[in-house]
């Protein structure tokens, strides 16, 4: 394997006349802590290490996305825009990346473009320099307003294409979508995003070159996760087959459910003949910081996973699965879970195999449960399913089975119009309701309600925070003083005297 990879890289270097540089995009503060700490990392714990991360040589640093907005407000009582600002004060060389989720903001249903556009504007105003855009239907129309807003405010756009195992999601489809991102929108980079870590090495070897060929000189970024233990291998193969940057997390915030480790990927890519310009020493310092922080916070660090093929088969997010189980329990149908799961697989394909992230697991499983409960499939159609096939969520990635579509439209509620209504702008109403507050607060109140926003606490800023015992800090601080007189300090359980 090692020799083979070296040969491939050497052949490329000989062909092009220069060693290719692979960049690393850091995802410790966003996805790493999301995967390992259920997004509970507090802003003040990111700040003391932010400057060192800034100097480590990353192409960019993912700072925040919708999940971090949610956790910050709902669980940590912290203002996510403040996090962006405080990080930006310390991260001055490396672009910080924010994100939007199509036209869904943080909810289940599409929202008006004006609120999404303001959301992007405020991320940029607070210090975000790149916006990652993602739509689970791969529907570019859903992303057009966000991309335009990002560009209008001077931010670069990372165009995410979610990897999906489903009929029709072939290399050509991804190449077509990637080309569309570049040609239609002029996005600065395309990211192949494997949220569930279910890419295989064989697929990386065809898919990455197909996308790279479609986007030419536009930067191709590769993301995967390590649930099967194969993530690092996939990332290395992706680089060899044309990816320009790899999303990583700093070890020990890597592996397990998280991303491949920055340190390990850098060393291995160099070993096979690439240039990787990150400062390994700084990365180790950053890793030591997060290791100590994890210990203090009693949060886990990433541990490598054992390979298990079940990950490739379920593709059904953990959260969605527990929802389904509790719904079936309420309906007294726990014993029919296997039947429902099988039906979910069938319905999903008939509905054009959307990527199974919110809201699609709920839509697909609602129909599957109805199909299992009733003798005739699609006899009872939940409203969301009819809305889905009528394009309320956007154009579908693949056509819905024609017979199924007829049954859904015929049996679905007549109250759901066949043509989606135009979504009215929400900002005028919001501005009417909230007078005299800034746009950041306006957005947060729209997203989370007044009660949560009234309860937000300011972040204890400053980088003096330390993971060491305060006495150790004190001694270090004294040692740093140029003029040393006799110093005596005594506390309740210690006494210190320095000459």
């Amino acid at each position, binding site marked *: *394997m090692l020799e083979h990879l070296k040969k491939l890289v050497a052949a490329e270097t000989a062909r092009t006349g220069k060693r290719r540089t692979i960049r690393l995009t850091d995802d410790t503060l966003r996805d790493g802590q999301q995967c390992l700490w259920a997004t509970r990392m507090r802003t003040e714990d990111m700040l003391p290490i932010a400057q060192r991360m800034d100097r480590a040589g990353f192409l960019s640093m993912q700072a925040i996305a919708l999940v971090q907005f949610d956790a910050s407000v709902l669980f940590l009582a912290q203002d996510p825009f403040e996090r962006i600002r405080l990080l930006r004060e310390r991260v001055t060389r490396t672009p910080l990346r924010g994100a939007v989720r199509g036209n869904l903001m943080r909810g289940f249903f599409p929202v008006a473009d004006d609120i999404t556009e303001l959301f992007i504007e405020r991320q940029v105003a607070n210090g975000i320099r790149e916006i990652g855009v993602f739509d689970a239907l791969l529907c570019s129309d859903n992303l057009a307003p966000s991309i335009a807003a990002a560009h209008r405010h001077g931010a670069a756009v990372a165009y995410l294409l979610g990897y999906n195992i489903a009929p029709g999601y072939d290399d050509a489809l991804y190449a077509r979508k990637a080309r569309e991102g570049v040609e239609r929108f002029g996005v600065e980079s395309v990211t192949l995003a494997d949220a569930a870590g279910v890419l295989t090495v064989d697929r990386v070897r065809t898919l990455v070159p197909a996308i790279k060929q479609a986007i030419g000189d536009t930067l191709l970024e590769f993301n995967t996760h390590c649930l*099967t233990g194969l993530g*690092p*291998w996939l990332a290395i193969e992706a680089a060899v087959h044309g990816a320009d940057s790899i999303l990583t997390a700093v070890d020990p915030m890597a592996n397990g459910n998280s991303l491949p480790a920055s340190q390990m990927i850098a*060393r291995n890519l160099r070993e096979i003949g690439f240039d990787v310009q990150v400062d390994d020493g700084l990365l*180790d310092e950053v890793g030591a910081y997060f290791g100590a922080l994890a210990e203090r916070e009693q949060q886990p660090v990433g541990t490598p*996973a054992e390979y*298990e093929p079940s990950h490739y*088969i379920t593709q059904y997010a953990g959260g969605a699965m527990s929802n389904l189980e509790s719904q079936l329990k309420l309906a007294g149908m726990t014993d029919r879970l296997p039947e429902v799961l099988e039906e979910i697989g069938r319905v999903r394909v008939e509905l054009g195999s959307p990527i199974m992230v919110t809201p699609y697991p709920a839509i697909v499983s609602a129909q599957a449960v109805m199909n299992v409960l009733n003798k005739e499939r699609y006899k009872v159609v939940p409203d969301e399913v009819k809305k889905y096939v009528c394009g309320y969520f956007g154009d579908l990635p693949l056509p819905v089975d024609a017979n199924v579509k007829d049954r859904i439209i015929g049996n679905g509620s007549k109250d759901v119009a066949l043509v989606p209504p135009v979504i009215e702008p929400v900002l005028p109403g919001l501005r009417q309701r909230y007078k005299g507050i800034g746009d950041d607060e306006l957005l947060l109140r729209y997203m989370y309600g007044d009660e949560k926003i009234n309860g937000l606490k300011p972040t204890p800023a400053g980088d003096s925070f330390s993971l060491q015992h305060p006495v150790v800090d004190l001694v270090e601080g004294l040692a740093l003083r140029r003029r040393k007189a006799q110093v005596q300090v005594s506390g309740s359980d210690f006494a210190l005297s320095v000459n």
Partner: protein
Amino acid sequence: MNLLRCSDVSLTDGQSARWAGGMTTPMALAVANRLAATGVAAIEIASPAALRQCVARGEDPWQRIELLRDRLPGVTLRAAVSLLTEHGRRGCDVISTEVAKLWLRELAQRGVREVVLIDPLVIVERMAPVLKEAKVLGLTTIAALPFAPERSDGDIQAQASALASAGASRVMLRDEAGLLTTDRLATLLPALRAGLHATPLDLHLRCQTALGPQVALEAVRIGIDGIDTTFAPLANGASAPALGTLLKSLRLLALGAPASEQTLHAVREADRMLGEMADRHGFPSGRAWVFDLAPWAHQLPGEVAARFMQQLAASGLAHKLHAFANECARIRSDLGAPPMLAPFARPIAEQALLHLSGEPRYAELRPGVRRALQQVYGAVPAAVDARLARRVGALPNTPAQTVAALRTAHAGASDAALVIAQACGTAPEAQPAAASPETFRYVPTTPAQALVDGLTARAARYARLGVQGPDIAIELQGTEG
């Protein structure tokens, strides 16, 4: 597809790789029944490393085998025998055919029914008579076929054919460094099948690169007859794949006859018991290692990889893993590209670590490196570095002592003791004697109890001693002063 035979190596390779050989005879006896309850096709109860570990602990290795036999009636017992030794005692670097036959006889007398015969250099002429003797003794012989990624499918196939022709009942492809990939299996397994004709093909592989469990599944899909596994707390990393995960995955992928719920339950119970034991004695849990390309350079096998990865980390050299790996590869090349197995791998890793620590290259030569340069184990595949070879000089050929001569020289020693002496490099007279079976009763000891016992035994060295930790506080009055 034929029925897949899963053989357990927890008591040998598993505990060597994950517990640094720390499974005592009482521990092995305590878990034996649980392992057998899973219905594995065979349980490996002895290997050269396990014999050595026993002797080092002061346990009689033959008594371990006998006690395990008594504990495991009706279970097929397996042992691994290697024709090359690591201890460096003159005259027994290579186990003579005569001593090997004696070794087999002692094993067979104690109920062992299958023998894995290892000659890392695969010199068929010295394996053939041993295979023949094993057959005479009624043993199933499994000839080890070492995998090395740089060797062609054709080369490995030719060795497989030769081993089958030499009389092996089965041939076992052994990937001790976990370097097989699904890509390589796709060509190698069909080639081996073609070379072996009707002789069954088994697979033993490790998980240093994290690919082991995936490779195991792919091997079953393409078609193998048997595979070595361990129980979860002793699996993955430098060890073999976990039986429980393998069975569940096979069932999920509808490969072969699905494991019953009863079997999976028995596996979970064995996993649980070993997990509790690991926790109690402070052994690390059987976690997977992270994928890395370095193993393809250093190619260190099982427990050697475990030991040196730990040593790199402990010396703050983990970031120099690739430099270490490349140095191992360079030294190996200087030594004529011997297989990265005992007795070659450990000295190569030791030598690489010396070089990595800043010593001029080859300023000091590790004894095992010296022996490899002198080619005491047989001819290596490539040319040895001429300068180094000149430096160590040739070694006068020390002929192996005949069994008759050994018996005369050690009149009071049994044949069993002579075998251990040859395999482990110890004096037959100094070997641990069999102990009363009562002393092999497993007494669960927590780390805290072990600490108190240890500190109490050293009471003369302190006046007062206090230990504070999470959930623990120990205050001891010593006898000093």
